[in-house]
């Protein structure tokens, strides 16, 4: 597994859903995008955010592959599965 880029197995995107303590929706957005940046995702977007009470319910999406990209999972999906089993 250590040699495997596990993100290559993601077909398109990775969503993170959580609740962020913040004072406004705008602040929630900034924090959400900062979280993705700190996790190393360069292409991220807020899919959904709703601020109420003490913070915001948020879904943040990191795009791993967009349509038309060269997909890691497609390139060697079967070998990769074997590798995971064996590894």
């Amino acid at each position, binding site marked *: 597994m250590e040699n495997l880029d596990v993100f290559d197995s993601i*077909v*398109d*995107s990775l*969503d993170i859903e959580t609740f962020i303590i913040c004072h406004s929706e705008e602040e929630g957005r900034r924090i959400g995008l900062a979280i993705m940046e700190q996790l190393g995702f360069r292409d991220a*977007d807020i*899919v*959904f955010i*709703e601020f109420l009470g003490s913070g915001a319910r948020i*879904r943040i*999406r990191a*795009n791993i*592959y*967009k*349509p*038309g990209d*060269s*997909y890691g999972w*497609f*390139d060697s*999906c*079967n070998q990769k599965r074997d590798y995971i089993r064996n590894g």
Partner: protein
Amino acid sequence: MDNNTIRKKKVLLIPLDPVHDVALKILNRKLKDRGHKTILLPPDLPLEEIISRLSEINNLDFVLVSRTLGYGVAELLGRFIDMAEAARIRDKAKMVLGGKAITPQLAAELGFDKGFGEKTDFEEIIAYLEDREFLREKEELFRKKISIPSSHTYQYKNNRVKGLLNEITDEIILWSKNKSSPGIERAKLRERMINVSQDDSLADEDKVVKTRALKKEYLSYCDEKIVRFYEKGLLPEKVRKLSSEEIGKLNIYIQQQKKDVNFKKIRHSQSLPLVFVQYGTGCPIMDIAHIKTSEAWGADGVFHFDPSWGARTEGLLEGILSHEEDGSIISWENLAVIKSSLHKETIWTVRAHRGLNTPETAVIAGKLGADLTKIHMVYGSLNGGTDPARLTIDGLEAIKLAAKYNMPFDEPTNEELGGVPAYKSFAGLLIIADLALKLKAQPILKPLFCYSPDVMISGKMDDNYIDFNVAKINSLRSIIDAPIWPGEPIGFMTHSEDRVQSSLTTALHAAIAISLQVDAITIASSDEAYSRGPISLASRIDTLRAVQEAFRFLGKAEIKPTGKAREYEKEITKGIEEALKKVARRGSFVDALYEGLLGSPQDGAYPGRAGRGTVIEG
């Protein structure tokens, strides 16, 4: 196998588990229903007492033991088998073990004849007891491609509407005489090119010569953008050809995806509605990933969604092409590779309906064996951007092609989303349906389940989303017995970017659909309202799961609308008749489109301009 021909068995059911005996009780009921003789022991009896009772029962065929595996349980079950052997019970009955964490291997190791795990279908156990093959509920039972129109007569129930439609559609057919268009000419040439390529009597060099000549003529009917592609290899912006390496891998990927797929059963106890999803990510590889996943999660059918610029361009591209934005390009090769990925029971529809390539798309779809297509001249010319006269003549040809290739077609009334009232969009819907029937085609009515601008303004959905949607279906049903497939997707304009809300609103609209027993529905993904990026595959699964749960929840029960539904139904039917009277009185369907009789600028409908002035006379 007929239940009457199966030898009835005597079965003893033993819940060894102190509390978890529900599964055995369900199985007991199911076996009794099938005429087997069963004895269900109370839970948690001592082994000695069980063996004692077993010894007293004559002609026993099976002993079914249920027990959740836990600490010391394997020893207990082993001891039970030893005691059963000592009492010579094993000689007369087969011993079967089932329960949480039980595997067939473990059951065999413990000395049982058969073992079933916790997720086993009851029918699988019954099939084993009845000594017949278990047809896992995959394609054999519930993934059956059916013809949506087959259960409908297309008989009119409203003679006033029938008479008006007859008058209007006679006029359309008369108007179309001796007319053609670049789209129709290309469709004819495309058909000939495909015939040449498939003609085994022709030598390869003859095929090349003939195709070249046909292609040259084809290009004379194309836009510059398409001509540049064929003559100079220049692709439109944001379009690329997949490499031969990618295509090779795609074919391997398709073969892999077709192996060992288990399908979820999306409907619980009803056979309708069929569930369709739309693909069109822009990339055929990603499309296939969406299709195979949707099939596995229970979708009955998929339909191809092409880019909007394709509808405004004269001519189609060739090759396996990827597009960076929404909508997958229609080309023979793109559609062929997608078709090759489909499960044999998946219903495939290719929409032809709204643009300048409508007849040619119908040819390609028909030649590739698509099950359905989509044609609607009213929507295509009032909200799809195509000139009404051009789309009327092209649509008429596409309907003839749909009939020729035995493709029923659906008519989406999406002009309602622009603001056209439902009754007006239904008048247009029925005109095209009547025209199709005259041309021996099979139309499928596609009203929207939506929160449309018109109902927002009129307040018809201020209380609930049920009454007006029910009224629409019942109004159409009061006019004609035709297949009805709400779309597109159901719950349009009720979705938000919250995936829970989005999935739920889809599921609730699916519940209305199953309650009304419509023929099919198209569902969105939970990303329906998210417009800043592509639809994720996970979001497709969200709504398929949600719809499955709604179907499970409702079963054969019905949703009861309020008395308003009946009022709205009458209002819609009356509105349809009034709209049809105006079109009939106008004496020209095409002029009626231009003049807004089926949707005006005040309603939010605008006659399209693409292809204006291109109808060929004579």
